[in-house]
């Protein structure tokens, strides 16, 4: 059996389960050893997954499906072993917009229509969660993300500086980068990702299908260890504090504890004077509910790839999700960790625009969007 697992992570607050599984020795408890590798870009992480120098990774859910479907890269069969997090990303707009009274999507849409300059918004990867949530939010606010504004990909660590310099008007990224922009005064939180979709899927534990097929035992042990780590983090506020402390270290997220801890506890400040305890904060476990590889979660990313022209045709959404998301393996691991796993494969959610996503009729879901049928041309990033 393979017992040393090369695991890539990005320096983001939601990498916590991998880090804590290693710190607490939960990997060894399940007979494996995590060899953690801090990655510098999603592209680099993807390449290292594909060439085998990484076995698994803390990765954008949407990226896994992008590779599976061959968007911008060769198509390689992929696997989602579990969901690692829910919620806890944010859309941050520039302080200048906040001072001009643009504090929500509707006001932003009015400003975009009024202004003669073209607005620029940034996400972290073309097929990734942040791009899809940003597009969704803009579209729900009445802004066509591909026609009305310019889109850019910016590494998360450069977001706050780009915002402060006026190179971008807003961005969607994982924490602690939204909190960082609020703390340093370059921006304010216009929406959290849980505003867009309460309890949305976040980072997945991703691998190539080849790895998952070749090492089922190692994968089961790893998922069990990560379930235990996720449960531990949520067991008490003290555990969240300890997690923030560990994450702040240069070896992991390498950011101030202040930027990490508050939002890890669900305490938000938007930078405009509003402070609140979020009812749907970043979650790692939620009794296992947050970790289950719901097929409807995987399908949603494909519907958005289709909606924005990244996918040119309708795939068999259910069949693709059923082969990528390793539900059987997850259920076995859940038994090992003593975690309950739901019986259903689909779940139902209401998103910010009032639409219901339950995975039952993806084609109808897509065609109902006001933006009309999926467009044939993908025009991301067009400077005009």
């Amino acid at each position, binding site marked *: 059996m393979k017992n040393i697992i090369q695991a890539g992570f990005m320096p983001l607050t939601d990498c916590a389960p991998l880090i804590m599984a290693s710190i607490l020795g939960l990997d060894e408890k399940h007979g494996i050893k995590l060899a953690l590798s801090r990655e510098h870009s999603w592209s*680099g992480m993807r390449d290292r997954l594909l060439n085998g120098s990484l076995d698994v990774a803390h990765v954008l859910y949407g990226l896994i499906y992008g590779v599976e479907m061959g*968007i911008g890269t060769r198509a390689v069969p992929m696997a989602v072993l579990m969901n690692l997090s829910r919620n806890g990303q944010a859309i941050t707009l520039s302080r200048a917009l906040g001072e001009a009274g643009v504090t929500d999507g509707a006001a932003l849409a009015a400003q975009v229509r009024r202004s003669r300059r073209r607005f620029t918004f940034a996400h*972290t990867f073309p097929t990734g969660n942040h791009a899809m949530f940003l597009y969704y939010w803009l579209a729900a606010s009445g802004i066509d993300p591909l026609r009305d504004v310019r889109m850019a990909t*910016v*590494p998360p*660590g*450069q977001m706050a500086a780009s915002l402060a310099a006026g*190179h971008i008007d807003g961005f969607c990224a994982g924490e602690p980068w939204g909190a960082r922009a609020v703390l340093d005064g370059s921006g304010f939180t216009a929406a959290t990702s849980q505003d867009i979709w309460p309890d949305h899927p976040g980072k997945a534990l991703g691998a190539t299908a080849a790895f998952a097929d070749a090492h089922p035992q190692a994968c089961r042990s790893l998922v069990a260890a990560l379930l235990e780590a996720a449960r531990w983090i949520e067991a008490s506020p003290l555990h969240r504090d300890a997690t923030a402390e560990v994450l702040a270290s240069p070896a992991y997220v390498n950011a101030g504890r202040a930027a990490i801890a508050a939002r890890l506890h669900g305490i938000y400040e938007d930078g405009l004077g509003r402070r609140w305890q979020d009812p749907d904060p970043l979650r790692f476990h939620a009794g296992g509910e947050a970790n289950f590889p719901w097929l409807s979660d995987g399908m949603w990313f494909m519907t958005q790839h289709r909606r924005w022209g990244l996918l040119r045709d309708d795939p068999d959404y259910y069949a693709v999700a059923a082969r990528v998301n390793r539900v059987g393996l997850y259920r076995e691991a859940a038994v090992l960790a003593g975690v309950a796993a739901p019986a259903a494969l689909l779940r139902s959610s209401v998103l910010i625009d009032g639409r219901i996503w339950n995975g039952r009729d993806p084609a109808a879901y897509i065609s109902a969007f006001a933006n009309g049928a999926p467009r044939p041309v993908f025009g*991301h990033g067009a*400077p005009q």
Partner: protein
Amino acid sequence: MLAIIIMNISWRISVARPYFCYASKKYLSGPELAYSQGMKSPPPVPRTLRIVVVNTAQGAGEQAAAAQARRNTALRIGLLESGYDIVASLPADIFLPERIAQIQPDMIIIDSESAARDVLEHIVIATRDEPRPIVLFTDDQDPSSMDAAIGAGVSAYIVAGLQAERVKPVLDVALARFRRERKLLDELSDTRRQLADRKLVERAKGVLMARSGLNEEEAYRKLRSMAMNRKLRLAEVAQRVLDVEDLL
């Protein structure tokens, strides 16, 4: 590690797409323009490869940034010495896609540890509707040498039309420089570690001599047997001795 991303022609035939429109107007003429308007044969490949090197991003931590900057410099020198034309050395910022669109390089070289890899990914996806398949490096080349390249951290996108024999020498130069630089860095860190280890052992010996009244030779032998019994490195045992000393 290096990632070498090669994109050719796409920036010459993008008249129909908004993204590179202004660049196209400026650069397209003659057969290339005709191609963009629907002719079948690809435009002629330019004689000298136009290479752009993307510099490391700021703020990645001083030490990492310095290491990346060194590798960038090594790479540039290697390519220049081998007679390649580096048309620009660009900062990895938000303007990178626009600058690349203006310069229209044949090849972009970037350290794969750079966060700006994702910015280039944006270009790859934004231009994927061009009549050019993006082909992974491994498809065009001798698989054994390509496995070695991937093992060393090289990945590449090649556009149909840029012949492999023109790409390979550039990659070879880049790889050789990269390996030499890495070897130097490895040697440097080995030396540093050995020095640090030796200091630890010396200090631990001092502690044992003071506490247990051993002479230097005996203290060393005690450390060595502790290391062997615990299957640890000598320096690790020395560190533990010092940790205990700190606690007392």
